[in-house]
């Protein structure tokens, strides 16, 4: 087996693959391990929405940087990644939400993100299937959609072509102090170990402040042109469902295949992959409020996945202070597809000491080691909305 590596990335989801690519690009000798195929966890379960979000300045910086990085490689992406600059339409139902549209536009403008305010008429023109009587929308034209498993596979393939090595599927039993031990007893050593296991990160490091937040998605048969943009309710950010343990919001995506992805739901405390029927039903009814004819489409599959949620809605990117060899790249909740690229950049910058595109501080895992983590977790989980 391969001797001493600079970096071992555990997890070949989109985040792990992006980290491997970024490390290999810096000339680091990189190994990638995964228990199963590429992008089979949250990467496969998610929508694949490249979106700039403004829940917090740190989230805005991370998503904005990532979107630019995606834009930068968009011409290289192979066809199966299905990258399409669809744009996000943040739909406002009333005047109150139109105020939010204008506030959001100002925040985005300050960050250099161009958006466009659509009035009621313009929204109806842009998306005829939306119900009449909406107040308007904010269009973020640079947002995109893609097919995440293929994107992860491409990033990993890029890493390999830059010299990274992918080892066959095997389960990691432990990873600490520069040593990774497999379940079969074999060991690998490296200066750095990157834990990019999504919700599985706590299996290797139980003290991480990560909780599973289950989500549901439904995909329909092919209905090309039914919707054109990623459609998200603006109430997504402010409504009560963000506080509840279980909530559904309107979030619909047109796929390149003509299929429609219908989301989304959030649930804490659900550990299995079963479909929660009443939540699924609530999610679809929510979509029907915005798209009255969506009930007539044929659904061909529904599934669930787990987001890795942190107390403050920001990922854990950077060194774990308790172990000088451990680097974290997890806790991306519902934004891992977008933020994978900036995460890779931050991880590679931390390892090599080069300057990253954005400040690393807001995402450093050390932020959870001040004071009582349990107390802050309780305080912070269950706060406002995100993803």
């Amino acid at each position, binding site marked *: 087996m391969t001797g001493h590596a600079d970096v071992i990335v555990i997890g070949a989801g989109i985040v792990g693959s992006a980290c491997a690519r970024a490390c290999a690009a810096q000339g680091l000798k990189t190994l990638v391990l995964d228990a199963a195929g590429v992008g089979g966890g949250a990467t496969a379960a998610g929508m694949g929405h490249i979106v700039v979000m403004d829940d917090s300045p740190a989230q805005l910086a991370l998503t904005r940087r990532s979107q630019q990085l995606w834009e930068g490689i968009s011409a290289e992406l192979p066809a199966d990644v299905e990258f399409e600059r669809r744009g996000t339409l943040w739909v406002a139902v009333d005047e109150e939400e139109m105020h939010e549209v204008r506030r959001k536009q100002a925040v985005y403008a300050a960050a250099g993100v161009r958006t466009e305010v659509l009035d009621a008429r313009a929204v109806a023109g842009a998306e005829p299937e939306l119900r009449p009587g909406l107040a308007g929308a904010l269009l973020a034209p640079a947002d995109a959609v893609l097919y995440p*498993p293929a994107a992860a596979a491409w990033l990993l393939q890029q890493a390999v072509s830059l010299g990274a090595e992918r080892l066959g599927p095997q389960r990691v039993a432990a990873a600490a102090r520069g040593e990774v031990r497999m379940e079969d007893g074999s060991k690998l050593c490296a200066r750095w170990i990157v834990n990019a296991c999504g919700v599985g990160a706590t299996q290797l490091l139980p003290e991480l402040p990560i909780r599973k937040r289950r989500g549901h998605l*439904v995909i329909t048969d092919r209905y090309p042109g039914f919707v054109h943009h990623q459609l998200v309710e603006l109430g997504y950010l402010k409504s009560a469902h963000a506080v509840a343990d279980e909530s559904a919001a309107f979030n619909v995506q047109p796929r390149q295949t003509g299929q429609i992805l219908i989301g989304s739901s959030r649930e804490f405390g659900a550990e299995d992959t079963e479909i929660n029927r009443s939540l699924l039903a609530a999610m*679809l009814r929510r979509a029907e409020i915005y798209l009255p004819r969506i009930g007539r*489409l*044929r659904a061909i599959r529904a599934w669930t996945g787990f987001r890795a949620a942190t107390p403050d809605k920001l990922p854990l990117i950077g060194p774990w202070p308790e172990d000088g060899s451990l680097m974290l790249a997890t806790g991306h909740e519902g934004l891992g597809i977008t933020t994978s690229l900036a995460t890779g950049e931050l991880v590679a910058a931390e390892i090599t000491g080069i300057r990253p595109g954005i400040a690393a501080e807001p995402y450093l895992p050390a932020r959870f080691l001040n004071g009582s983590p349990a107390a802050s977790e309780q305080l912070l989980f269950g706060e406002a909305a995100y993803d």
Partner: protein
Amino acid sequence: MTQTFDILVIGAGPAGVAAATAAAEGGLRVGVVDDNPSTGGQIWRRGAASPAAARRWMEQFESAAITRLMGWQVIDCLRLGPDGGVLRAEGNTPGGEAADLHFRRLILATGARERFLPFPGWTLPNVMGAGGLDAMVRGGLPIEAKRVVVAGTGPLLLAVAAHLKERGAQVMAICEQASPAQMAPLGWALLRQPSKLRQGMGYRWTTRKTPYLTRCWPLAALAESSVGESDGQNSQPRLRSVRLQREGRQWTVECDYLACGFHLIPNTELAALLGCAMRDGFIVTDEQMQTSMPGVWCAGEPTSIGGVECSLLEGQIAGLAAAGKTGAALALSKRRAGMQAFVEALERACRLDPRLRDLAAEETIVCRCEDVRMAALRGRSDGRDAKLHTRCGMGPCQGRICGGATEFLFGWRAGQVRPPLYPALVSSLMEEEAAGSVAGGAEYAVSEGIENV
């Protein structure tokens, strides 16, 4: 819509018909759901020249007080507990109405489907399932004077060939992939089942002028315009001939139809959704046909491929047992043990020759819904990995067609079963469970007749 039953039977083929008829004798409220517009299942379609036994069963079934929900497809199980549960079904109507079917006890008689194997040209028009072509002919497809090659494996081939012949088709060849040695135990088992033997001999007599070739299979279906280039994507290429192979010899037979079926795959998706234990792809039951889930019975092909008689017997056992008539169910289950030899012989006779794995060329389509070719599937670690990275099995058939092929080709097993079990209107998944009490309540007065099992 909501309907409430003491016993709900899923599937109106022989097993479901027998189960419902047996269960209804005690005056229980029995319902039968089937996605087909007519009863009888794949094997006894209405209008077909059915054997006398089938007619007798159908007459009993039709005259019994049974609610028949034909043209309804079960898309989900909303709830299942020891006292019963709720299934959601969608009507096969333009409006696509949804119904919640409450039951105290459930009998699964979901039957089986044909296994298809990919070979060059298998996606050409007029290359179809053996049972599929048979059903289309029963449904009115003109077959007189058409040249048909029947290929694959299993007793269905002979039955289909005989029926097509009766309808005036020119059956060019019956190609059975199995070897004579492999099929010998089936012959011995048939000697103990005179009715089956008579039936089989009758089929062979009807098709006596057609060569019945063992260890023979199609290498490629060839299109009219492009000989040798059989996966042709030209505008509507038509089937012209089939290239056959038998023990190193290859030859071409001109034909209008190629009817292919590589035996049967049990329909176990609903059982899997309910959590019923499975072994080797079949539902595990006790001698009264009860599954590992209390209150859920299973009969017919999902438990083992044993033919119509076996399905009828299992259906009766399940129906009696679900109705609480344990003694009668156990008495019948002794007869079932006697059929085991046939089931095992049939399984052996239909075991697929490993060389059939080499039929698909690199560019042969394996997943028809998503046009996934063989080359894309090689090297994938499992079925889920293949699905995520090639879209194999992601289409509207939900892997029902390609799943049987990829299981044989690569050993991939189907993943977790989730609702909807079949493509369903979004509106059918939108509704909360319709009210209705499963246990107790005045509407269940009649159900007190169910003894505790």
